[in-house]
């Protein structure tokens, strides 16, 4: 386990003075991804249009201490792939001595939706890069519109909960699985750091692996958005914890095609533990909507069971049962 005192001595690569909302999870994620960079290594960071982008480099103030580029919404992966290609060419010509690492950040809008083609292309081409999706489950930058990452039932400005339609009517796209299907060296699903849990360093560890495993790698990070989730900022990490403990957002990694669960809750909490903390799901918990909660629970269970199979946890469980029967 990494040592916090030692980590704190590494200079931060993102400064204060950015214009993200108070309590935003995105800079937390950026801090912990970039903390995984070795001190001597330089980085080029690309950012898809979104909250993080507009708030971290609002001319003339940049919060980035590494080289950083934003060009558009849907193309952070393509943009960083070009920078990586140029680096390879310049390195081949002997024009560059230093080591550079290439990281792209995008929200779920820029990654799951409008940027999916560019992401898929860059990943398939195998550039030496990491794409980090800070997934907060809606287009927060434009005012909380639904994305394909938005959870079923969530009340957003384009999937509003009304008298007839109770919020978003589709379950979220499973982007981590889509990226795993690209057969990349390293794909992982993780969360913003939650102190006091076993997965406090999950993001850091997975970032380190992603950055220092050669090839195109992908991280999907559940990131709190107090405004979009309608929660008190101070409680946001409790909400993240609930996402993990209910198995709504399991922590796992896929290394060279091999699935591995990186955290298994001792007791899987009911989905209401995640729903009840957030204003965007408030309507689901009203009397008469029990069937919706059941529907969500069933889908969470189905996806969790499938993941357990992929991670070989089912065989492990069977073996454990068999061993105890002997």
């Amino acid at each position, binding site marked *: 386990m990494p040592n916090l005192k030692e980590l704190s001595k590494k200079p931060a690569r993102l400064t*204060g003075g950015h214009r993200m909302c108070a*309590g935003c999870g995105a800079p937390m994620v950026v*801090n912990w991804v970039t903390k995984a960079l070795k001190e001597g290594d330089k980085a080029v960071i690309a950012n898809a249009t979104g909250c993080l982008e507009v708030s971290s480099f609002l*001319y003339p103030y*940049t919060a*980035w201490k590494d080289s950083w580029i934003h060009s558009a919404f849907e193309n952070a992966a393509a943009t960083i792939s070009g920078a990586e290609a140029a680096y390879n060419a310049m390195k081949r010509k002997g024009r560059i001595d230093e080591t550079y690492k290439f990281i792209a950040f995008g929200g779920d809008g820029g990654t799951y939706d409008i940027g999916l083609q560019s992401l898929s292309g860059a990943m398939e081409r195998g550039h030496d890069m990491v794409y980090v999706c800070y997934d907060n489950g809606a287009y927060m930058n434009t005012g909380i519109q639904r994305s394909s990452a938005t959870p079923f039932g969530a009340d957003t400005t384009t999937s509003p909960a009304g008298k007839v339609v109770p919020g978003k009517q589709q379950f979220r796209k499973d982007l981590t699985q889509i990226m795993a299907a690209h057969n990349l060296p390293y794909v992982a699903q993780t969360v913003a750091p939650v102190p006091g849990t076993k997965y406090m360093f999950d993001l850091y560890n997975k970032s380190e692996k992603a950055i220092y495993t050669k090839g195109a790698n992908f991280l999907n990070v559940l990131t709190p958005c107090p405004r979009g989730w309608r929660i008190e900022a101070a409680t946001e*990490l409790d909400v993240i914890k609930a996402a993990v403990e209910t198995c709504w957002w399991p922590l796992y990694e896929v290394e060279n095609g091999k699935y591995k669960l990186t955290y298994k809750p001792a007791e899987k909490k009911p989905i209401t533990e995640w729903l009840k903390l957030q204003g965007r799901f408030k309507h689901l918990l009203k009397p008469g909507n029990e069937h919706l909660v059941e529907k969500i629970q069933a889908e969470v269970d189905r996806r969790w069971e499938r993941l357990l199979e992929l991670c070989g946890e089912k065989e492990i469980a069977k073996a454990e049962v068999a061993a105890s029967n002997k």
Partner: protein
Amino acid sequence: MIKERKVNITPDMTWRELTPGGVIQDAGNAEDFKTGDWRSMRPVWNTEKCKHCLLCWVVCPDNSIKVEDGKMTGIDYDHCKGCGVCTAQCKFGALDYVPEE
């Protein structure tokens, strides 16, 4: 304190003086931009109760927990937006969360 910058860009500069294409060569100059006045609540550090576990530093979205040599030394009120994420993490009562006056 404003650090010495390669180019100090101000809104009264003409197009001839601004950096081309909006490039910024002073990486991290957002430090010069104070977000401290966004606060309506304020974290207050009780030095004597602090165990220097650094969990507040882990979660601060604004890099406003000052740490030197592995120990907390204070709060950067120039940038702290008063979100309260740090105070929620403190198990030792070393961070109070109080309204701004």
